[in-house]
């Protein structure tokens, strides 16, 4: 069945046929025909954000918490350029989103028309793929391709740029089943020989560790389930990157915590000393590896990843397995079971004894205080009072983000949304809006720093308008805390522009937005304040005044290997050499 319709109508039809229920967007001249169509239907909800960056982060939050692609709609020129940070964020964290942008009419392209920008040119390096659609007949097909590319293989952002005349003109609508998507089909099944080799390595490993990442979550709930089964069956310890938290439950007894620059001592030591590293859907990011030539020197490294370009990119591995995590783990479990479910139990048990001595160092311990709220204490209380709830957590970027990762426990995938690869301050609030949109009855908390939160605070207006009861939990140290920490450790305590002057009164700000706020500075009142935040029926800003000079530990200083962590203030003197200082 072919149907004639305008390009603008096609956009809405294609979104419906892709199962989209929510679009985050902001109108402008070049998308008015699409907005006119949105006005005339009720199947797709449009959430009016306050800034296009917010729309893209909200779409990311929606995508991460549902596993479905998120959708944003922006106008040409400034609308599209405002989306660039969000697109880059989604590219680095492999989040499936589709951004639709308006463009000046085709006959004006190249004339520096009003609000013209070379959107496909600007976004080429920050999308998985993008398209400029010049004919209405190709519009529906292109939108379907954008969804296909965004969600297939390693997920990522796509963008479709739609000139205004293409939106007005009539054309033939093509349904998703007829779209030309066949040419993009990443390999899902892993090589059986390689998987059998991995089973063999599992049988003989003495000091194994699973090092898992966001790829497990991206692969879908089945992959997390299979990972859990594999971990339980082998009894091997498991650590995860920031992006992979929740794939294996934090309460699981094989869980040894997050690894990396601010990861747990036991996790980093296990990575350094292991003899078999099974990397599942992670990518040996520099926050994880520390100094490359001293990264886990004695291990056989196995890398399961759907993206061939991730393999051997920074760390040469011994056994690469290209394929979807879920498919590979399924085959691995089957093969390993048929071979007799063997592991070297005695050695693995001795390995656990070693790990337990590292765990006994209690690397997250901090000095308690009954006068000033320590940020770690705030995290502990937030965890205690929310962990049994149907909870989703987003974060901004900085120390608070690392403390959240260290102190909050995630039992399921898709419950933790943070900007890992790009480290985008201003991610958390709009992301919380997107998550709450997808889960209206759940608790959504954004753990924020004062500086990050201000970067996209306008989205509080979105939360209020759409009655999204997002909880903004601000660890207010009146500092750009993570920057301050680096300046303390690396730049002789010269705190160049790393404090927040003229901070707004967050309580008044909440009132000005039409929601509620509270400030708390006494540790004894913290629980009550958190309770009030949780019980309030609407968006809430909790301004938690915390210790201003706390540093986040453990920390692997730049340029150092995993087994050289700073555990607390006492370790920090001259810890980072001049070569480390050039690293970020």
């Amino acid at each position, binding site marked *: 069945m072919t149907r004639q319709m305008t390009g603008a109508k096609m956009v809405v039809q294609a979104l419906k046929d892709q199962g989209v229920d929510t679009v985050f967007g902001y109108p402008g001249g070049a998308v008015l025909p699409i907005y006119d169509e949105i006005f005339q239907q009720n199947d797709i909800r449009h959430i009016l954000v306050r800034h296009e960056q917010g729309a893209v982060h909200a779409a990311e939050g929606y995508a991460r918490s549902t596993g479905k692609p998120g959708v944003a709609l922006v106008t040409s020129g400034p609308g599209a350029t405002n989306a660039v940070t969000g697109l880059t964020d989604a590219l680095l964290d492999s989040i499936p989103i589709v951004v639709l942008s308006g463009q000046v009419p085709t006959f004006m392209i190249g004339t520096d028309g009003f609000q013209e920008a070379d959107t496909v040119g600007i976004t*080429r390096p920050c999308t998985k*793929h993008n398209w400029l659609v010049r004919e209405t007949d190709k519009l529906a097909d292109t939108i379907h391709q954008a969804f296909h590319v965004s969600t297939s293989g390693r997920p990522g952002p796509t963008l479709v740029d739609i000139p205004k005349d293409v939106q007005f003109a009539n054309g033939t609508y093509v349904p998703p089943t007829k779209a030309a998507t066949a040419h993009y089909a990443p390999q899902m099944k892993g090589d059986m020989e390689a998987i059998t080799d991995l089973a063999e390595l599992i049988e003989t490993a003495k000091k194994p560790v699973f090092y898992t990442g966001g790829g497990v979550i991206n692969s879908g709930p089945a992959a997390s389930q299979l990972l859990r089964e594999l971990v339980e069956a082998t009894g091997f310890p498991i650590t995860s990157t920031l992006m992979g938290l929740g794939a294996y439950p934090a309460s699981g007894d094989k869980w040894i915590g997050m690894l990396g620059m601010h990861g747990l001592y036991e996790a980093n030591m296990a990575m350094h000393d292991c003899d078999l590293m099974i990397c599942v859907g992670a990518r040996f990011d520099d926050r994880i590896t520390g100094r490359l030539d001293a990264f886990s020197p004695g291990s056989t*490294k196995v890398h399961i990843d759907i993206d*061939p370009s991730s*393999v051997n*990119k920074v760390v*040469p*591995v*011994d*056994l690469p397995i290209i394929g979807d995590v879920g498919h590979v783990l399924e085959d691995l479990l089957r093969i390993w079971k048929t071979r007799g479910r063997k592991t070297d139990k005695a050695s693995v048990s001795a390995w656990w004894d070693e790990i337990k001595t590292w765990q006994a160092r209690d690397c997250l311990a901090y000095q308690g205080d009954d006068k000033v709220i320590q940020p770690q204490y705030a995290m502990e209380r937030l965890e205690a009072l929310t962990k049994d709830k149907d909870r989703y957590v987003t974060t901004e970027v900085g120390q608070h983000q690392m403390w959240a990762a260290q102190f909050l426990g995630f039992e399921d995938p898709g419950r933790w949304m943070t900007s890992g690869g790009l480290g985008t301050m201003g991610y958390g609030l709009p992301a919380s809006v997107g998550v709450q949109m997808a889960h209206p009855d759940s608790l959504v908390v954004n753990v924020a720093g004062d500086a990050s939160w201000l970067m996209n605070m306008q989205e509080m207006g979105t939360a209020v308008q759409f009655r999204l009861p997002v909880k903004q939990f601000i660890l207010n140290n009146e500092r750009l805390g993570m920057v301050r920490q680096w300046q303390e450790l690396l730049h002789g305590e010269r705190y160049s522009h790393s404090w927040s002057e003229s901070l707004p009164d967050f309580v008044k700000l909440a009132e000005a937005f039409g929601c509620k706020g509270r400030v708390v500075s006494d540790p004894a009142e913290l629980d009550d304040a958190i309770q009030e935040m949780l019980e309030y029926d609407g968006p809430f800003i909790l301004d938690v005044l915390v210790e201003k000079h706390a540093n986040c530990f453990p920390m692997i200083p730049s340029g150092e290997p995993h087994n050289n962590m700073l555990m607390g203030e006492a370790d920090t003197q001259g810890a980072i050499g001049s070569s480390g200082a050039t690293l970020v």
Partner: protein
Amino acid sequence: MSALNLKKGSSRKSAYDLRDPNSEVIETHTIACVVDNEAGVLARVIGLFSGRGYNIDSLTVAEIDHLGHRSRITIVTTGTPAVIEQIKAQLGRIVPVHEVHDLTVEGRTVERELALFKVAGTGDKRVEALRLADIFRANVVDSTLESFVFEITGTPEKIEAFAELMRPLGLVEVARTGVAALSRGES
């Protein structure tokens, strides 16, 4: 531990197995990609090289299948074995890229480049230029009383050699196409 006789950095199904992935030796490779001939595809390929800091020594592009809208991009690049592998994997990720061939490792290839040389001079130099052109099987495609334009086809090395010889004889201008390459044999 490596009872399986695994080799770091190698993937079992590639000719790359035969080379040392950790080698710091800079190699030159000729890579051919078959791509959809759509707007922006060349920008994607070039953007990949500039964005990730890879080298392009030469680049040749033209449509090879009008009906199928396919183009062939031939790139000569240099890098360590690990970088060359990354380049191929990254090229393979680009959505309109259908095939990536590393002609340098896939077997014997024929590589050709076409160049035009303008050489100006009179007297002995002019005679010598013409004589050398003949040895190199270059064709004269334009001539005036004081200049020639030679057309020469061959490997990049042959063209380099010809350029060296023409320089003292009055070389004015050169235009080169970059390398086009195919693997030898029937497949």
